[in-house]
């Protein structure tokens, strides 16, 4: 049960993240800020990597 809930939460989070990315890209193209929005995307991805490490260090995710 808890597994399903947290998986759903994660899926929701990822979906929102994907939407944010799409929005950022449309924004960048529209206002001629391509480099800004793609840079932000990059930062997001790197942060996401950092989150994966932090989760592991905090013991939230385990070694598979």
């Amino acid at each position, binding site marked *: 049960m808890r597994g399903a809930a947290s998986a759903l939460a994660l899926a929701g989070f990822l979906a929102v993240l994907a939407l944010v990315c799409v929005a950022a890209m449309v924004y960048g*193209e529209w206002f001629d800020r*391509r*480099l800004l929005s*793609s840079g932000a*995307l*990059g*930062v997001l991805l790197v942060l996401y990597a950092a989150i*994966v490490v932090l989760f*592991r260090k905090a013991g939230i995710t385990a070694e598979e």
Partner: protein
Amino acid sequence: MYRRLLTGLQSATLRLDVGIQRVLPQDFNPLYYTGGLANLFLTVLVVSGILIFLYYEPSLEGAYASVEFLTRDVPYGVVFRGIHRYAADAYMVAILLHLFRNWFTDRYREARDSQWLSGMVLLVFSGLAGFTGYLLVWDERSQMLTSLTVQALRSVPLVGHWLAEVFVGGPGVSDTTLPRFLFLHVGPAMALYVLLWWHYVRLRHPKIWPPAVWVLFGLGLLFILASVLPATSGRPAQPGASPEGFPVDWFYLWPYVLARWMAPGWALALVVALLAYGMVIPYTLRETPEERGLRALGQAVVVDENCTGCELCYYDCPYNAIYMVPSPAPGKSRAAANRKLLAVVVDSRCVECGICIGACPFEALELPRMLDRDVQQRIQRGAQAPAAAAT
């Protein structure tokens, strides 16, 4: 001397791991996945390359303009171009790390030489695809690289002029030049996949992807680099112009920097010599079996009488060194009497690790210099030893 150096480098390489694992969980250590990282960046290169290819026009008049169009007018074209460029650099970093790590941790000789050789050929083709990429833009840098390369090739004895003509597609730069460069860029890149088959053929499930953290981090880094340092062209190439210098991509264009101090032909000779040395590394300074000690216990041997054809060894051998063949005759032991298959060890692939011995439940495999029988004796002695007084 050289050997001591290698031992020192091995110790340092493993000490680096200790340091990394103080910061990161063990299975996140990027140095355990250098091959996977190279493959990740190669995949990015192929995907972004296909997108760029859709817009590229291989002609003297059109090439520069088509790249400019991609950079300015295509949605996120500049980002794709940047990602393609920085993925190429990241790819080279990854393969060099991979090369040195495999070298320093002794994973390159004896039965592993085939992976090393295919790796060196991968390196040659990667370098080729990398530098020809800079020719395609047809800006001043492309022009300089072309003329330096032609000079270098011309100075090759006997076949030099012919090589130079093959390179630019005629006696001089002409309309055939850029289509040829395009092929010299895409051709070697595609050949990499054939070579990777050779690289992997002796590895059982090679780890071709790094863990998710590194995929995320790697992609993020590429996006950031592509935005902070957007990839641009120099001034367009002018027939007859002789530009002073060009921005250098140190991972692919360093031989051209050498050309500042030596004739281009010598720079080429130096690159060829380095790569040739790389190819013989596994065969220099071979160790004697005594020096290799426990790592030279002889290649695994199947005991025909006992093998039941259960395939367990076949599934565990990390180097695909065991083949299951139709059994020519039944085995002797009771379990082996009705076998359909027989295990066969391919000597040239076996690294003498003994993993198959641990897999075999039927005492049908042995490492010649560490027999089951002897190990059993040592176990019994250890388990029953009278309390030894000595310390």
